[in-house]
């Protein structure tokens, strides 16, 4: 057990430290205001108001049960029917947490990729065309084109271009996860939410996935929950540290990892947690 004194030396530790992004090149595209999430009567998230700049990667880190996945799943209303979410989720100036919102239309703009690769038991092609067909795209030419671009953006095209009609279940874990990303970006969302997308992958696949995410940043705003702090440090511009249902610290990734202002964050990122 060692204590990383360099990090804590000379700083006055606060209980909470939140610096919202303020970069003219990356206007705020999504923000939450007074967001609370309840599972039944139990409050799982009570202090977590963040703003996200467009075309940036924001990492949500924190120990298990800290509320980061709960927060992420609330952003595209995947917690509907599971939990009660109060407060505002402002997406380009519109509160998408109000009852009048068509969640299906909204989820087309705010896509999500899950922890466990979850391709449907269909062909690779049909997996990607799934959401497009639901929206009434039937033109074969158009579908072919979108399938190709999506797979290229997800860096999977070269590996599967000859096997588009094979079952997606035959793909390896890393390939399946990139297929899920291709499937999510096929509907051209604005924001991509990723819930620990690399936790089921080996280090090589993880590295490829991170490269893919860095490429995707040009087109999409990415919010990623991760347990892997090196991953957060490698790919994200901003990092939020969650603990026990609260955002304890939010700042640029370099600040969080080199000069954290909150003791718990410092302990967590230096591996002395708990």
């Amino acid at each position, binding site marked *: 057990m060692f204590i990383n004194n360099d990090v804590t030396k000379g700083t006055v530790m606060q209980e909470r430290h939140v610096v919202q992004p303020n970069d003219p090149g990356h206007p705020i595209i999504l923000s939450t205001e007074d967001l609370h999430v309840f599972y039944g009567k139990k409050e799982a998230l009570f202090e977590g108001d963040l703003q996200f700049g467009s075309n940036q990667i924001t990492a949500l880190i924190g120990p298990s049960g800290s509320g980061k996945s709960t927060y992420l799943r609330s952003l595209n209303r995947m917690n509907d029917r599971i939990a009660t979410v109060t407060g505002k989720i402002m997406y380009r100036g519109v509160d998408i947490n109000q009852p009048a919102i068509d969640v299906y239309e909204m989820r087309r703009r705010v896509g999500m990729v*899950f922890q466990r690769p979850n391709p449907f038991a269909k062909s690779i092609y049909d997996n990607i065309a799934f*959401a497009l067909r639901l929206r009434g795209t039937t033109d074969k030419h158009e579908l072919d084109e979108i399938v190709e671009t999506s797979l290229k953006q997800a860096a999977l095209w070269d590996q599967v271009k000859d096997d588009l009609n094979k079952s997606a279940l035959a793909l390896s874990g890393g390939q399946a996860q990139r297929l899920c990303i291709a499937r999510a970006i096929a509907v051209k969302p604005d924001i991509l939410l990723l819930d620990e997308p690399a936790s089921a992958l080996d280090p090589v696949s993880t590295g490829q996935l991170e490269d893919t995410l860095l490429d995707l940043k040009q087109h999409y705003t990415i919010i990623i929950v991760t347990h892997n702090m090196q991953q957060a440090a490698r790919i994200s511009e901003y990092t939020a540290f969650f603990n026990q249902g609260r955002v304890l610290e939010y700042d640029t990734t370099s600040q969080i990892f080199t000069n954290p202002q909150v003791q718990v964050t410092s302990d967590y990122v230096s591996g002395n947690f708990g």
Partner: protein
Amino acid sequence: MKTKTTQQLEQQLTRHSKAAKLEIWGRTISLTALLLIVAVVVAIIGFVASKGIATFTSNHVNLWDFLTGKSWNPNITDANGKPEVGALPMIVGSFLITILSAIVATPFAIGTAVFMNEISPNRGAKILQPVTELLVGIPSVVYGFIGLSVVVPTTRAIFGGSGFGILSGTCVLFVMILPTVTSMSADALKSVPRYYREASLALGATQWQTIYKVVLRAATPGLMTAVVFGMARAFGEALAVQMVIGNAALMPNSLVSPSSTLTSVLTTGIGNTVMGSLQNNALWSLALVLLLMSLVFNLIIRLIGRKGRLQ
């Protein structure tokens, strides 16, 4: 040379402890139970087969005549001196009533299962689950009695005739197999992993699109098993059908004309024959046909299950 400690250790490791003895006992008991069940099943199949084959071996009835003959009257012989044991009317009756009740029950069962599982899991678990379990527990004679006093008169009033027939049988069987098919369909839907639904919803699919395009597709093998299971139950149901079908061993010329099934002829006739007589053997042959059909249903269920696993 073994040292003393090695000898001691060997002794400790090789002696039969109490736990090891219990292990042998446990294996013996469970193996005995298994062998007993297998023996009973083999004995039943062997008995029914030997009795059922007697019609063809000792009474010299042609198998083809038995399966395709349209006249069932084991007590009299025809002009050629051959007994009238044509089982086709019963076979047709059994299949017709089975398929019809499955066709009627399937949409209701899957609809109910979807509601219980996808649309309103809470209410589904609170109300529909006990109701389905209750329906399974009602004895078939009660279903038959209700059929006799409600369904048959209604059929008579609407379609004329006696009211007895395949239509009434279908109505009764529909209610009888519905709970089985529903609860098995619900199990099939339950076994579709949650991440399938999440993946679909996160792509912007509506709940109905998710159910229709993802959940039902993924559950298809399970749903088919549920339907075949219901059919097997309908095929084997005797008492309730016998009470409403009219029990005339005639080819059904309409859904409301009195007819019969393999089981209904068996239950009506089995008490009125003498062991070893042709009349008795002919009934055993019907029982053999029933048994073989159940085996076929089981085989289908297994095949579907295997195909489902491969996906």
